[in-house]
């Protein structure tokens, strides 16, 4: 029987920590599970150099390695993996279908664990210069900025962590934040402020990104002083926030006004047999540790739902 002929107990869309943790729990309790991932096991965490705050790893663990270990653990219990991009879903009814670039898959329950992606800043020049100096992933692209000057946009944990990571390569890293105060936790702020390669430009916004076939400078506006100037940089890394990967859902489940999936503490969405877990869910704290917890709960609830149907 091919995968397309199989009706899985649980179809999981997204192979990040939430989806793979659910896969571990579900397949370990003898449910048949297919995880559909469009790129790389681990999801966003795979692009994090080191996971510092996951309980039980005092030295931290590499993000990519963490993703691979999660996948190995899920596979060990029988989880199947499909490398495909989801194009549409049909979630009503007993048998739910998920259309992908590799064909249509069917399941009795579905877990939506598609996570988030970096939000674009929306500055003129950003789209045109993407991959030509505008980047959303320091661990992917930092290498190309050896001995160069880069700007990091944002004031949260990611902006500071990735800014510090970039100092391994770049000779100078400007961290540009639109507010007077950084949002990152104080430990990170102190570390970043101690780093001689980092310079903060606060209360400052990027008006536009300039360059012909690669980034040459950014036009900045300091709001307090109402001063505009061009800062020569070779690259701009965006860490201005996240947006949920829920476009493919249309109106098939209830979303909040920002597009995050509404689910209760049992991870149940507005559709019976359909669950949401991890960053894609409307919630307060988006961390690996909360994502895997969501995944475990969703798997158990999906199992109960199937038991009741028997």
């Amino acid at each position, binding site marked *: 029987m091919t995968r397309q002929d199989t009706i899985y107990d649980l179809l999981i869309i997204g192979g990040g920590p939430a989806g793979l943790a659910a896969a571990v729990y579900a397949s370990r309790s003898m449910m048949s599970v297919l995880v559909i991932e469009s790129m*790389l096991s681990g999801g966003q965490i795979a692009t994090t150099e080191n996971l510092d705050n996951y309980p039980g790893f005092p030295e931290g663990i590499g993000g990519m390695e963490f993703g691979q270990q999660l996948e190995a653990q899920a596979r060990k219990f029988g989880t199947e993996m499909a490398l495909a991009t989801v194009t549409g879903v049909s979630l009503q009814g007993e048998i739910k279908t998920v259309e992908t670039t590799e064909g249509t898959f069917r399941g009795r329950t579905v877990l939506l664990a598609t996570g988030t992606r970096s939000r674009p800043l929306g500055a003129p020049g950003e789209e045109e210069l993407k991959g030509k100096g505008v980047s959303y992933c320091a661990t992917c692209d930092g290498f190309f900025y050896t001995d160069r000057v880069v700007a990091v946009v944002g004031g949260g944990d990611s902006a500071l962590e990735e800014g510090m990571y970039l100092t391994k390569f770049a000779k100078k890293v400007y961290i540009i934040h639109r507010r007077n105060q950084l949002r990152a936790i104080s430990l990170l702020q102190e570390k970043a402020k101690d780093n001689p390669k980092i310079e903060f430009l606060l209360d400052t916004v990027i008006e536009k990104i300039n360059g012909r076939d690669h980034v040459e400078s950014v036009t900045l506006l300091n709001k307090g002083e109402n001063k505009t100037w061009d800062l020569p940089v070779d690259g701009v890394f965006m860490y201005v926030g996240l947006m949920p990967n829920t476009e493919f859902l249309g109106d098939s489940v209830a979303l909040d006004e920002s597009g995050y999936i509404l689910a209760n503490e049992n991870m149940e969405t507005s559709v019976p047999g359909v669950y949401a877990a991890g960053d894609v869910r409307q919630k307060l704290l988006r961390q690996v540790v909360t994502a895997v917890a969501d995944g475990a709960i969703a798997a158990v609830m999906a199992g109960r739902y199937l038991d009741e149907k028997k």
Partner: protein
Amino acid sequence: MSGNVLEISEATFADEVLKADTPVVVDFWATWCGPCRMMAPVFEELAKEYAGQVKFVKIDVDKNRKTAENYKVMSIPTLLFFKDGQPVDTQVGFLAKEPLKQKVNTAFGL
């Protein structure tokens, strides 16, 4: 596994890419790049399917920084599509098999 994708370098770039008889897709990659690792099996399958028609080669940016700089590669994986020694199209970032096939067909008019 990796029988169909030739590993090239700065030294062999001109011969293998610019002077090739067939169109060439060059994969700029590195060992530390996660999406590149995902790209590799897809690239391998395409190399097999397009054997004789389109050539698929890869170049490690760690060891061949100059070539990456020449072609303004600033993010990986980047795929460059060459026809008659000229780059005709670019793909930045991972692409699944089917969309990549479409891109190859469009770029080379197949």
